[in-house]
């Protein structure tokens, strides 16, 4: 890869894979691949590939929120996905990825945590969102965000009730109710140009990164700037407005795929 080429092209309004500056790579979404999960989805974003699996289990609420279920988002950058990923405890990048995906879901109130209570203060349902990166060709945040949303929209929950001290299944399942559909849109700043959905080659030359997560009402629910440089206010405002449009496009694809 010629770093110089990527930058040169972008300054001319072009990209190395011939996309427009404001275009995403092709997005493919499959749901339900993991039968043992309550829900699952695999997203190809160009050659990036992310699998998200949802597990919903009985557990205990946090002591300070006895009337809410628990949402846990975790991301694994397994070394299978990239020569730059290493074995061992989660890296800074993996933690950032999981926390940005988490914020989108949590802050948009996509999951009604109150509906996950089985017995107040004692037993609740715990929703685990596990993001598994399988091939890293850039912009993992958007791929992970879409995979998580599709997997949640694909999830079924067993009906539970208390019988004495124990939680038992009533029999039957229902769709996990989703109140919102947050979608992350990520931008890279390359030289003085802003592009959407950076590929790995572009990430390697970008000076800064901005993620804007948009909910189904077109509101912002999460943002995250990354990278060793910054943005000027005009860039931020343009990015935010573009994010609203792009999120709507991508959300439509995700929700269509989730319905199957």
């Amino acid at each position, binding site marked *: 890869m010629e770093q110089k080429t990527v930058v040169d092209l972008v300054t001319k309004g072009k990209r190395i894979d011939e996309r427009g500056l404001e275009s995403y790579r092709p997005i493919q979404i499959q749901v339900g*691949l*993991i*039968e*043992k*999960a*309550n829900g*699952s989805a695999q997203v190809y974003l160009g*050659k990036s*590939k992310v*699998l998200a*699996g*949802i*597990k*919903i*289990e*009985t557990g205990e609420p946090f002591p300070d929120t006895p009337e809410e279920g628990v949402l846990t988002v*975790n991301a*694994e950058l*397994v*070394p*299978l*996905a*990239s*020569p730059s990923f290493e*074995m061992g*405890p989660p890296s800074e990048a993996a933690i950032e990825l999981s926390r940005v995906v988490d914020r989108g879901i949590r802050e948009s109130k996509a999951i009604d945590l109150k509906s996950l209570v089985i017995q107040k203060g004692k037993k609740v349902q715990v929703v*685990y969102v*596990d993001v*598994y990166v*399988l*091939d*890293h*060709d850039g912009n993992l945040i958007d791929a992970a965000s879409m995979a998580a949303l599709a997997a949640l929209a694909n999830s*079924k*929950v*067993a009906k539970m009730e208390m019988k004495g001290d124990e939680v038992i*299944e009533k029999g039957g*399942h229902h769709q996990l109710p989703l109140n919102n559909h947050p979608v992350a849109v990520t931008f890279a700043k390359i030289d003085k140009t802003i592009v959407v959905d950076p590929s790995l080659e572009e990430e390697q030359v970008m000076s800064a990164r901005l993620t804007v997560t948009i909910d189904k009402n077109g509101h912002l629910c999460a943002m995250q700037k990354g990278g060793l440089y910054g943005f000027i206010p005009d860039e931020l405002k343009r990015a935010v407005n573009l994010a609203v449009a792009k999120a709507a496009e991508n959300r439509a694809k995700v929700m269509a795929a989730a319905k199957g």
Partner: protein
Amino acid sequence: MNKLPEPKQPEKLIDEKGLRIDGRRLDQLRPLKLEVGLLDKADGSAYIEQGKNKILVAVYGPREAHPKHIAMPERAVIRCRYHMAPFSVDERKSPAPSRREMELSKVIRESLEPVVLTDLYPRTTIDVFIEVLQSDGGSRCAGITAASLALADAGIPMKELVAACAVGKIQGKMALDLSDAEDKYGDADLPVALVPNMGLVTLLQMDGNLTTAEFEQGLSMAMEACKTIHSMQRETLKKKYATIKDAVEEREEPEIVA
């Protein structure tokens, strides 16, 4: 504790016709699907579906050893990680490696070592990453089958492909390639990896209860199955190279014509 009801214990594992809960005969493999070369970043990759097992393997290397002190002056070091996705099993698994995963990583590595020509690449590492996306009994064997394809896909010189398959005992009878439920409610499990032409068993573990005669019967069944799987592995690689050859030839033809 679990989200979806776990499979209940079936009344019988073998019915009066001698068929198993999924309708298989005792010596029948589960449906098997193999693919190679599906990951972009890895030097080699393979995917296996065997029953409900869904396993992805990537190979990186030979590459510079990191950290350096693990390098060996006269050969490549193979490293192997068998790892299960948190959603791959009935109850969510912590992503931190368990003792079971660490043991399996070791025996899988030792099952692959005999065929890899490690002395060609001194001071390097060859990394084999096995990710179990869904687990269904026999995942270590399925992992070996796929790992050996991924090594081939990465162009690592090998004497031969390694194939693996488990045999078990259910309701007192030896049965090939146990599924999750058979493994859970069965009496023994005997995973085997074979290098068919060398006739070499490179993985062998067992737990449960077997007589020596049952062991011998099980070993033969497993070896036969490994040979079948071995053919499928070779077929998979052939198809891949044919596709590449076709692609290359197609692309080259115009040039030749021109």
